[in-house]
């Protein structure tokens, strides 16, 4: 693979190479399918399903997927929230958000005023229902994020999110609550993320609520596409030049660039 060209410089690979690759990859696909067939017949049939259902009553939830996500494999989910946050922080590191779109017309504004509350309410419902039916933090968070996207499309440069300081707390809420609950349980001798069955339901709900907020905020903020507009986000000359020789004795460090008093 050569350097990824800009979207406009679409230089296509030669036809021969593409065909050759197509043939090779078809062979790969056939081989993989055969292997998959063998693997399916290997006799591991119930896999983890039976065990997962067997343990379900002591997980604190009735929806088996939620049980896996927030109990059996809660650690995966915790790290996955960290992945989402890392991606967002990476986006923020690239610069301030581009300016918002023009103010929307009356029709869209009216739609926004209907759709957004609906999405938020549905999100809350999803979160609650996730304990025993399809739904949960991810779906709820996604709905909140979608609400943010619509608000952004309607012209709000912040996609309905609060100012930067509050936004940062929303973003970290998921991992923070998750980790603190886990460590708290460890401190009380139960082990990291090992919920006592009596408390499991409520602890999971607490974590899910925080995760929903964090996922919604992260997805909306990712759509905004940069650091939130605000005093912090103003592009500075320093943004462009990474190699500011600030440590050379000849060039004393640049004075702190804090516009606030």
């Amino acid at each position: 693979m050569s350097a990824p060209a800009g979207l406009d410089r679409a230089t296509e690979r030669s036809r021969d190479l593409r065909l050759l690759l197509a043939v090779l990859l078809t062979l790969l696909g056939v081989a993989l399918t055969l292997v998959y067939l063998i693997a399916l017949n290997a006799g591991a049939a119930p896999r983890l399903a039976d065990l997962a259902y067997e343990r379900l009553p002591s997980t604190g939830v009735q929806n088996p997927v939620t049980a896996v996500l927030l109990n059996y494999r809660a650690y995966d989910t915790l790290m996955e929230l960290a992945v989402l946050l890392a991606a967002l922080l990476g986006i923020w590191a690239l610069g301030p958000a581009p300016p918002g779109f023009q103010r929307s017309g009356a029709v869209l504004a009216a739609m926004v005023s209907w759709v957004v509350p609906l999405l938020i309410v549905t999100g809350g419902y999803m979160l609650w229902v996730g304990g025993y039916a399809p739904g949960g933090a991810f779906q709820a968070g996604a709905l909140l994020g979608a609400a943010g996207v619509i608000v952004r499309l309607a012209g709000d440069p912040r996609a309905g999110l609060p100012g930067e300081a509050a936004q940062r707390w929303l973003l970290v809420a998921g991992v923070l609550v998750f980790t603190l609950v886990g460590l708290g349980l460890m401190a009380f001798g139960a082990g990291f993320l090992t919920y006592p069955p009596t408390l499991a339901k409520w602890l999971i709900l607490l974590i899910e609520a925080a995760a929903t907020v964090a996922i919604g905020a992260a997805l909306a903020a990712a759509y905004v596409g940069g650091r939130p507009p605000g005093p912090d986000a103003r592009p500075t000359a320093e943004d462009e030049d990474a190699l500011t020789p600030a440590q050379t004795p000849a060039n004393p460090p640049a004075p702190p660039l804090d516009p606030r008093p």
Partner: protein
Amino acid sequence: MSDAALTHPLVLCIALPLLGAMLVTALPRWSVRLGILAAVATAAAAVALAATVWQQGTLHLMLGGWDRQLAIALRADGIATALVLMANLVALGISVYASGYFHDRVRVRSFWPLWLLLWAGLNGLFLAGDLFNLYVMLELLGIAAAALGALTGNRDAVAANLRYLLVGLLGSISYLLGVALLYTAYGTLDLGLLAAGIADSPQLLAVNAAAMTLMVAGLALKAALFPLHFWLPPAHANAPAPVSAALSALVVKAVFYLILRLWLDLFWPITGMAAAMLPALLGAVAIVWGSWRALRAERLKLLAAYSTVAQIGYLFLFLPLLAATPPGPARDDLLAALLLMAVTHGFAKAGFFLAAGLVQTNAGHDRIDDLGGTAQRLPATTFAIALSGSALIGLPPSGSFIGKWLLMQSAIATGQWWWVIVVTTGSLLASAYVFRVLSRAFGLEPTPMRFITDARAEVPALTLALVSVAVLGLASGPVWTLLGLSAAGVGA
């Protein structure tokens, strides 16, 4: 599990940097102070972990207290512990260095949370005992690393790290398909249970081989094994110095660690001589090619990045030697040598990049041909480059010298003498590229008045370099002790 507190360091190694990342994200004004605090706490947890494993042997923890099949396992054996200790000490050094490196407020606030997330991902990867959890850790590493690498925001850095991100994603998807195949066939994701399953199912050779190929190929892409290394030099050379250090010293090593784990623990029934030959040959080409490109590089950081390509090659040379050596002291020595080499390169490469970053900030560029004055003005920095450079070459008394010695010994003993030629050629080329830099430091510039000019930046670089040379080269014994514990853990 009676003594649950023993496993606390295992969790803390991951939870503390994660918690730190949340705090620096939420309280950006306190980034540096909170970041250093988290760094020190995490490193302390790693030291505690090493001490526990040293005394107790391999640690296992089933998160959530569920059955082994259902839960995600964390485990720390000798190999993992040695690498965790290396990674956390190096990361602590990088953190101290970084606390003075970034001056732009925006960049400070971007660096710390991503760096701590990367750190959590590293520790998570080393300690994970579950194939899917490893996938999540790989993604965390890949995303945080690409974001950090693009931190300078200049065009080359963004382009290189975009490519790194995409290539990394492809690699982890390939890995994930392998995981899916294994889950289909064996119905579990736990490394230990899968290892037992694979050992008991020679009739599933096709599945095992396909899963291994998908996983190892995907990881080789992320570990930059020749010819899949193309993305590494630009990405590592254009990142800010502390990030380059972390990427080259830690992230690539972590991926190699995972390959080694799969190779030795999971797929050992099918990773014989025939399977080991291809990666080793690629590793041999990587040594020669990477060293040659490093020699031809015009920029110091590009040189260091190509040298990483070569150093990864050395690690792959061990695979056929391990395959040819029956279990016993000789194989233990070989494994210890491999580990010693990886750990030494970790320290040395981090020291090298940190020092190179200092040269760059002082000179305003890192073109090797014009660096003379700067190198001479900063004796401690040049010293750090010299020390870590000798460890990269494998000169005594560095840890990699011991590693190289045992590598060559095993190559001769198992009749695979051709690797000796590869290692010798690599060492000569490495000497050439290291001394190409060092010779610039002996010019007619005015005499520097003191050894250390900028303690916060120079001391970490020098310390890391010194560890790779003096400590690991003269006291490599603990590596064997740790490995001995891991062997005991497998037996028990």
